[in-house]
């Protein structure tokens, strides 16, 4: 039965409005960052970031049109191709890429170009969605799991070669997708525990307390549980493993991580330790945000913003502008918009009858969630500084387009949810 695919009627307008609101707010904020009251350029001035961002937004409109017009089966059919293409480009980047701000993630001709890593995000989401949605896929199959990890591992490694650790970390967020699709929680728990131990090791400088605590817990567990040999052995092994992890964490931090990365972590643990050095970014960010008070200083009135106190304010620390100029209320609105968008995407995902679409939706949600959580977390000192943009707010064509494509492919798929062939 052929359903009349009326494009505009089936697209999820809630999501589109949320998208529009975020893009426009983002655009206004970019203007606020670049605004110099002595000069007083208008928001459309091309020499300012805001003018250029408008061009990017314009280009996004064209991209949206293209996505919507394109047949929805295109995405499913060409998922692997797109993925493969982008992986190839990623390989090329370290060779032909330009070094910008400490990493070689940008390629282009003249001033035209972009960051392929931004596009790799949606490509990977597509590839994973297709794989999970393929016939005969079973989450508890070890080989399938391995392929899944390879799918996210490959871009991670390639991007690490570009020295863009932050973006590489993004791909870890697909674990959420795996989890939703049935991957055993064991790995998740191990992962979370690993992270918890990592953090604890950082917080508690004296290893011996940790080791002592583990031993104490071990003894308690042995004492209060069934005294079966197998259990005791397992517990002891587990404890030993944890202690080993603690030691290796220490090793990783001091010997593997580069100084600036170490510093970023140190800045997280104790941001006030070196406010002029590695703590500078976060301190300035918190000062800017904190000075906003309840309702902010007013649009274009932020002193920290105007006088360039916060580094990377157009990109990584864009949230500071909202914090300073619109205050807590402004922050509330932006956080609220993002949370709503995320929940909406999950809602869309759940109403898909087609596994490919559903997995893809979760991919979209986890990517957005990762960026949202980490970026804002950075600005308030809850997460180490890794260079991740805030979707639609951070200045930049590649990231805007990447997220736009990511989102609108989902909307396109969603618009046709009634007619996609069912697959298990």
């Amino acid at each position: 039965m052929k359903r009349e695919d009326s494009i505009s009627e089936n697209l999820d307008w809630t999501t589109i409005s949320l998208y529009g609101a975020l893009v426009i707010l983002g655009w206004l904020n970019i203007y606020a960052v670049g605004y110099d009251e002595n000069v007083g350029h208008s928001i459309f001035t091309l020499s300012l970031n805001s003018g250029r961002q408008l061009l990017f937004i314009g280009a996004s409109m064209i991209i949206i049109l293209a996505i919507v017009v394109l047949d929805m089966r295109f995405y499913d059919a060409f998922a692997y191709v797109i993925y493969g293409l982008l992986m190839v480009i990623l390989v090329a980047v370290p060779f032909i890429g330009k070094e910008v701000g400490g990493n070689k993630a940008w390629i282009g001709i003249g001033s035209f170009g972009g960051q392929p890593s931004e596009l790799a995000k949606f490509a990977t989401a597509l590839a994973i969605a297709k794989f999970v949605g393929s016939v005969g896929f079973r989450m508890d199959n070890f080989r399938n799991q391995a392929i899944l990890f390879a799918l996210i591992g490959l871009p991670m490694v390639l991007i690490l070669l570009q020295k863009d650790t932050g973006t590489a970390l993004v791909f870890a967020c697909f674990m959420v997708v795996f989890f939703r699709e049935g991957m055993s929680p064991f790995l998740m728990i191990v992962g979370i525990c690993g992270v918890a131990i990592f953090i604890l090791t950082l917080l508690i400088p004296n290893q011996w307390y940790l080791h002592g605590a583990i031993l104490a817990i071990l003894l308690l567990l042995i004492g209060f549980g069934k005294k079966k040999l197998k259990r005791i052995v397992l517990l002891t092994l587990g404890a030993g493993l944890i202690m080993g992890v603690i030691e290796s964490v220490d090793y990783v931090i001091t010997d593997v991580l580069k100084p600036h990365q170490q510093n970023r972590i140190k800045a997280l643990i104790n941001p006030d330790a070196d406010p002029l050095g590695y703590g500078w970014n976060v301190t300035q960010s918190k000062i800017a945000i904190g000075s906003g008070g309840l309702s902010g200083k007013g649009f274009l009135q932020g002193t920290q913003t105007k006088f360039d106190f916060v580094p990377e304010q157009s990109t990584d620390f864009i949230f500071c502008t909202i914090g300073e100029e619109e205050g807590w209320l402004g922050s509330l609105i932006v956080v609220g918009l993002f949370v709503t968008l995320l929940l909406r995407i999950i809602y869309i995902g759940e109403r898909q009858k087609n596994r490919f679409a559903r997995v893809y939706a979760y991919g979209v949600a986890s990517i957005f969630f990762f960026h949202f959580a980490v970026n804002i977390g950075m600005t308030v000192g809850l997460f180490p500084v890794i260079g991740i943009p805030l979707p639609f707010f951070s200045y930049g064509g590649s990231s805007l387009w990447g997220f736009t494509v990511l989102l609108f492919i989902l909307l396109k798929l969603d618009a046709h949810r009634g007619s996609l062939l069912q697959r298990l």
Partner: protein
Amino acid sequence: MNEGRKELFQLLIILTGIVFLVKLFFIQVVDSRYAEMADSNAILRQPEYPVRGLITDRNGKLIVYNTPEFRLDVLLKDVRNFDTVKFCTVFEMSRKELRKKFREMKARREFSPYKPTVFMDQLSSTDFAKVQDYLDEFPGFYVLARTTRAYTTPAFANALGYVSEISKRQLDDDESRIYKQGDYVGQSGIEAFYEEQLRGTRGIRFKLRNVKGIIKGSVGGGAYDTLSIPGLDLVTGIDLDLQQYGEFLMKGKAGSIVAIEPSTGEILALVSGPSYDPNLLTGRLYSSNFRQISSDTNKPLFNRPLMAQYRPGSIFKIAQAMTALQEGVINPDTRIRCDRTIINCHGAHSNEDLRGAIENSCNPYFHNVLRRMLNQGKVNDPYEDTRIGLAEWNKHIMSFGFGRTLGVDLPNEKSGLIPSPAYYDGAYHNRPWKFSNIYSLAIGEGENLVVPIQMANFAATVANKGYYFIPHVVKAIGADQQPLPEYRVRHYTSIDSAYFRVAADAMQQVVESGTGQYRAKLQDVIVCGKTGTVENNPPLFDHSVFIAFAPRKDPQIALSVYVEDAGQGARAAASIASLMIEKYLFGKTKRPYIEQYVLNGNFEDVKKTVEVKTEEEKPGEERR
């Protein structure tokens, strides 16, 4: 199997949102530190130091003024790309010195990387001119212009006092909270006493600057800025010529000269010997100079006119005389034999009346007078009688301004001592005492202690015939042109003014034909005075003392001179006093040989020469 997971993810999303909002709430609304730090980022508070009030003498001559001085502050968080080598070259210092300076700065109590901290202080205009052009190359370094004190003359140093940075203890004690670290504050003398009037009000300018420290404008267009208000100017009663002359005469001597205008209480000159150059206690060499000056065994920082407590010697006899007249135990014609077996005396006299006794400074006379005063027979018990007499005597003497602080507008004034019955009870450990124990009081020896300013004030009181104004240095403050209110009040003694005439007569006689005739008599003006010779410990000479006022009618100047270790009062002190009177009334002395005598400072051997001179003067040729 998948059901709970969707909810878990949703929960995670919502939880993240809430965590952020809570954290944001804390940063933005609850914790006010960030707002302050934002302000200190973007707003530079530049204090504008007020100009301190000027100090002039009574004729409008400038004594203390202000000179520019520069201070270099550092705002550490603004310092970028610091070129150490260049800095050392520009500022002409070694890298070691530079490191030391940074260490010192960081060790300061008020140091913070977010606030400007003092880096280099007290740069003169020439120092500053050298480095001014290069300051742009060192972001984070700011210059503060301010003023420091300068003096037109080294005279009057002790009374003027000096100005230096406020100490930690002074800051802690400051209840008004007006002062900040680094402020200059008067530490002694007039600078301290009139600190409130002299200091002015600090202004403040709020400037906006960007992350590079470049000033971008004023906050609110300057609406919040306040201008500094200069301090009030002070006019002192000092006559600078007279003051300088007095210091000139006191060179090489220890002691003091105090000159007062009796009709107003304005201090015309306040000389403390030895003294120091006040310019040494300003500027960068302040601490090393201070160390040197304060460890000088002659104690130049000790302000003798106010702080030295001496025995008055024979000048006290004037006060004794008036007290005795007031008590009615003698009258001006009372004659008493000069019995040198009781107490030593000198000069050719044997049985003088009151005026004669003063003129010749007869000790036995006053010994007798005091006994009459203390033992007036009001009760039978001699001990009790003496107590009563002494109490009365004490009351009268203290009404002259002795035995207590007068309230001069300079700090560290001492009170001296006039014994009371309670005092002797304590001194004798409650054993009984009577006249025979304490008779040295009669001639100004014993337990009496007076301060030179009190002696000058006493001379002024006699000049005024019975009252005084509290002596004060500053005669006019600011636009009002008035001294502080307490200096406009007359203080009367407990003695009738008729007796003051007797005293004045006697003092005139002292100078005309008595002990003061040799060096204190002047041709063109009637001088009233009294000599005093205060016992000192051998082999040192006695202290030389003289009080005087002139002219007799409508007195313009009353003074006290006290020269330590200089022999009889008739010599050093009398000479200096009369020279000062000549200088003030006529502009210069007509007796250069007396001036030379004083400057030589040799007060023993010249006696013969002078006496030869006076023998040549025959009675009758004396002129008024």
